[in-house]
């Protein structure tokens, strides 16, 4: 079956970024084709940990993160479900005085950015979070942060985009994309040809190929964050838990399952899928039982892992291509894309409509690596090629 679609925007990758961009673009009146090689939201967007967290992000991400923060409580209105979003707060633990000092310094750095962080000392942690065991030096609480269910949220954004009129094509891998005078020409699975004025490259861990096709190689590698989930237990964990220096993160859903991560998995035989390693999973399980006495007798019923794209500097690429007009990149969220993705979708739609976004994204320019190689600081380059005038 062959067909040719004519659209304002073609989006490569139906993860949360691509789906939310598709939805935002449709609401602005653009015609959209969303091309997904598998199922929408089945990769990193759907199988990540589910942390909805601003705390811990580098200052340059906070504006974007704050924009997303305003979206999460409105999911029901936007995509029809609340996605099990809970504004539980995010508690980042420090196990040593040095880690506590690091949390304090972070709090100072973002003090003006509206996260309302609360630093909590050793004794107050014991009082307020008696379900955490062991010697915790202190913690930083971001009360407005929380968690949600990635499986549901990502699929719901894609469904909402479809209902809003986006052409959502699953199992349609893009095999070729090229710039033609009037825009772009994409070839995808099942004989699908798409002609579009704009292309958004939101292909996650698979985005590097498309960037490279336009002369923009990026230091993007695959990572496989891996999670364990316990059987349902009575709810004791009332915040989303992280740890300074990493090693463990944990949340408990309303139904009672605890989801705990902190180790990496490995790719499966089919490289598009990954799975946790036995040793990684057992390490997470042991850590969880040691940190949370309520889990001491609990069982893990499932492990999972997802494939994510990580950039060398752990910041995503968001913004216009430096080589190709009307090509926009949004990938490389480095294991921390879930919370900001809905805002990224809006930003991408603004880039298409206005050629710029009201949210600052300069720090995420794709040529930052090339510039660093040349010893030239960020921001001292000519203005990027943003948009061609509409035809």
């Amino acid at each position: 079956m062959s067909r040719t679609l004519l659209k304002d925007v073609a989006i490569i990758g139906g993860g949360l970024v691509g789906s939310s961009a598709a939805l935002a673009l449709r609401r602005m009146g653009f015609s959209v084709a969303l091309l997904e090689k598998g199922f929408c939201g089945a990769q990193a967007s759907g199988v990540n940990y589910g942390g909805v967290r601003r705390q811990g992000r580098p200052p340059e991400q906070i504006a974007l993160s704050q924009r997303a923060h305003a979206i999460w409580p409105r999911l029901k209105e936007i995509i029809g479900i609340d996605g099990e979003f809970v504004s539980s707060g995010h508690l980042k633990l420090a196990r040593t005085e040095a880690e506590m000092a690091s949390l304090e310094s972070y709090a100072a750095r973002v003090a003006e950015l509206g996260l309302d962080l609360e630093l909590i000392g050793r004794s107050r942690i014991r009082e307020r979070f008696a379900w955490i065991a062991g010697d915790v030096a202190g913690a930083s609480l971001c009360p407005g942060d929380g968690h949600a269910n990635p499986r549901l949220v990502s699929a719901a954004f894609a469904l909402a985009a479809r209902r809003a009129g986006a052409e959502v094509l699953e199992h349609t891998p893009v095999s070729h994309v090229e710039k033609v005078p009037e825009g772009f020409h994409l070839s995808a699975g099942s004989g699908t040809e798409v002609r579009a004025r704009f292309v958004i490259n939101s292909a996650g861990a698979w985005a590097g190929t498309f960037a490279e096709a336009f002369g923009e190689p990026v230091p993007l590698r695959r990572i496989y964050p891996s999670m364990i989930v316990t059987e349902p237990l009575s709810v004791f964990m009332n915040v989303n838990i992280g740890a300074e220096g990493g090693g463990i993160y944990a949340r408990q859903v309303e139904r009672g399952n605890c989801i705990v991560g902190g180790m990496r998995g490995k790719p499966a035989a089919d490289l598009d899928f990954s799975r946790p390693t036995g040793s990684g999973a057992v390490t997470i399980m042991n850590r969880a039982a040691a940190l949370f006495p309520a889990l001491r007798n609990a069982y893990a019923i499932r492990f999972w892992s997802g494939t994510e794209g990580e950039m060398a500097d752990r910041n995503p690429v968001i913004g216009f291509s430096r080589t190709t007009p009307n090509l926009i990149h949004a990938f490389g969220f480095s294991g921390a894309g879930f919370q900001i993705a809905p805002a990224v979708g809006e930003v991408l739609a603004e880039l298409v409509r206005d050629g710029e976004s009201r949210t600052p994204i300069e720090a995420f320019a794709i040529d930052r690596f090339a510039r660093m190689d040349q010893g030239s600081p960020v921001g001292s380059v000519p203005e990027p090629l943003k948009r061609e005038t509409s035809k």
Partner: protein
Amino acid sequence: MALLKRLARHELLPVPFILNGEARSGRAGDTVLTAILTHTDELRLSDFSGTPRAGFCQMGACQDCWVLTSDGQRIRACSTVLEPGMNLRTIAEPRS
């Protein structure tokens, strides 16, 4: 009231255990599931609707026969051998 009915193995040695605080007796070679369900008719409450469950497959597949020991450990009743003095509790609160 008991769910299971003993038809054989009456001759085997009694094995004393405690179920929900009461002294009970099973037989050598009983699984925990048999020992409990020859005295009562449920093992646990389902996690979400809290409806009674009493196992299903008896071969370690369905995971619907988990019970507790007095110190909070979880055991799968159908694949655990009854031992003298076991202090067992059926799950009377969902997700406990």
